[in-house]
């Protein structure tokens, strides 16, 4: 299974944790963990960022806002490192 597919599977299943930075940004923008799962379900774009060493997925929050989630594995645990509103 490619890393992208594995991450999408883990996102859909809620098998992830958040960095404090990602949590604070989510709180500022009223994005919640259920929205992250929905991004995994509705993802329409994905790419790897060499600069940030993260896998990025763009999809829809539960209220249909476009959200991009950046994540990476750390010791087998999927970590959400950042999210952005928009694509």
């Amino acid at each position, binding site marked *: 299974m490619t890393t992208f597919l594995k991450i999408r599977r883990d996102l859909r299943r*809620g*098998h*992830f*944790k*958040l*960095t*404090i*930075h990602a*949590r604070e940004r989510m*709180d*500022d*923008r*009223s994005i*919640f*963990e*259920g*929205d992250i*799962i*929905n991004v995994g379900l509705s993802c329409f774009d994905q790419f790897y960022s060499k600069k940030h*060493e*993260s896998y990025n997925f763009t999809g829809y929050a*539960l*209220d*249909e806002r476009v959200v991009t989630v950046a994540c*990476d594995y*750390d*010791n087998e*645990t999927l*970590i959400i*490192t950042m999210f952005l509103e928009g694509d």
Partner: protein
Amino acid sequence: MKKTDLKKFAGLEYLTIKDVPIRSSKHGDVIDVNYGKLERMAAKFILQQKIPIRGKEIKLLRSVTRMSMAELGKALGVSANAVMHWEKEGDKRLLPINEMIVRAFFCSELEVEFPKCFDDLKSNLKRAKKILLKAS
């Protein structure tokens, strides 16, 4: 084990969650708690403690139950636009009848006992006062 406090949790200006376990990673400090646990704890607390429900609280409650605005609207017998309007007016407390319906629905979804009577909804509080929750 390292711990931290998360202030203004879920965008709620009155809510701090204390003693949240964290661990280091190459991407910075990670909240070492499984998906949904903290948000669900905050949502249940809001319902159990009869915190005034505004748009901001509805957003959290809706997300914890993984519902879209349309799905919530359908469940409550209102339009998706009505839900969107409530959430857009984030700081405005719902009308008492709407608050009762919203509270009853989410109490059922999250298996929280519904407050006993209307008296709990009669307060003039526009929003909750400062709250501290403990993560562990």
